[in-house]
């Protein structure tokens, strides 16, 4: 196809007159939008999940912010322990809210994530892991605040902690 017949070629000198450059630009943008819609559309599943996320709104819980992530706060090239295969390094996440800290070690397995964590500064009655679109998974909290969550799907998760004093603490959504 020649550019001449498309009107996409911008200023067309020597033809029947000058094609407005802005109109040609508009047409090129529209053309690129059609291409993007064909080869790289926004997944419908993403749109529905983003809308459905509204149900996870929680105005009462206190949020423990992600204050450290070994992915970005460590050197770009991680030191791999001897014998550790590629992709098996643990990722360390630290969440904090006034007086309470939650440290998590995330182990990535094929298609699943395991999290071993410790809550300090507060006593937790229960800890539950939440991912969008699934019921929360409660886990028991052992001595010194240790807990383990197994088999999370990859993607955003958060922990919901019922503290002994009655308060609810959630960790900031983090993709693992």
């Amino acid at each position: 196809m020649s550019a001449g017949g498309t009107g996409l070629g911008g200023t067309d000198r020597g033809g029947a007159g000058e094609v407005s450059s802005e109109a040609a630009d508009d047409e090129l943008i529209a053309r690129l939008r059609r291409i993007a819609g064909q080869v790289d559309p926004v997944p419908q599943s993403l749109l529905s999940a983003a809308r459905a996320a509204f149900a996870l709104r929680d105005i009462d819980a206190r949020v423990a912010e992600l204050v450290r992530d070994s992915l970005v706060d460590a050197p770009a090239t991680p030191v791999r322990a001897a014998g550790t295969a590629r992709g098996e390094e643990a990722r360390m996440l630290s969440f904090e809210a006034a007086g309470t800290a939650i440290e998590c070690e995330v182990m990535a397995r094929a298609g699943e994530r395991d999290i071993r964590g410790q809550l300090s500064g507060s006593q937790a009655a229960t800890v539950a892991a939440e991912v969008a679109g699934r019921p929360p998974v409660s886990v028991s909290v052992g001595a010194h605040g240790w807990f383990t969550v197994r088999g999370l799907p990859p993607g955003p998760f958060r922990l919901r902690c019922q503290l002994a004093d009655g308060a609810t603490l959630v960790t900031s959504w983090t993709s693992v």
Partner: protein
Amino acid sequence: MLGPSCVVVDDASNSELVAAAVAGDQKAWDALVDRYTGLLWNLTRQYRLSTADASDVVQTTWLRLLENLTRISDPERLAGWLKTTASRESLRVSRRTDYPRPGEDFTSIPDDGPAPGQQLLDDELGAILWEALAQLGDPCERLIRLLISDPPPSYAEVAGMLDMKVGSIGPTRQRCLTRLRKLAGLDRSES
């Protein structure tokens, strides 16, 4: 009939939508999602993440907004907030140890985003244009990707995401499209 607490979402400002969402209005939330998911998707695409990872980044961005909804101090700067959050998350994912680093073998990416030229495009010119877009480099690639989002964004929304002045979007677009045409071999006056 719309109740008094409902906003007419299509024309509503971000401030109105955020306020309505804080009050529990699902439709206002949906309107925000519809307004910005296309922009966030195209923004994230520049980081060359897999489709699954790009979806996780955008979904995480929306969940983070939900978590911070009552703390957004200036909803008219929402686009910038979303852009910053999604960019940070994209960088995080691209630093995961199972992602290739510069100089490493890119064939190990499990499910790459749309690569240039290999698509199901039924016309040659379309494939050439798509490949030229990927070769543009920043800041042009970022701007054009945002401008071709669906639904078509306003210049104000794009400017908000890029922290640019609205008035500079038009001239920059023109300059970037001129470069795109050259890369695609469409600019006959240059050949």
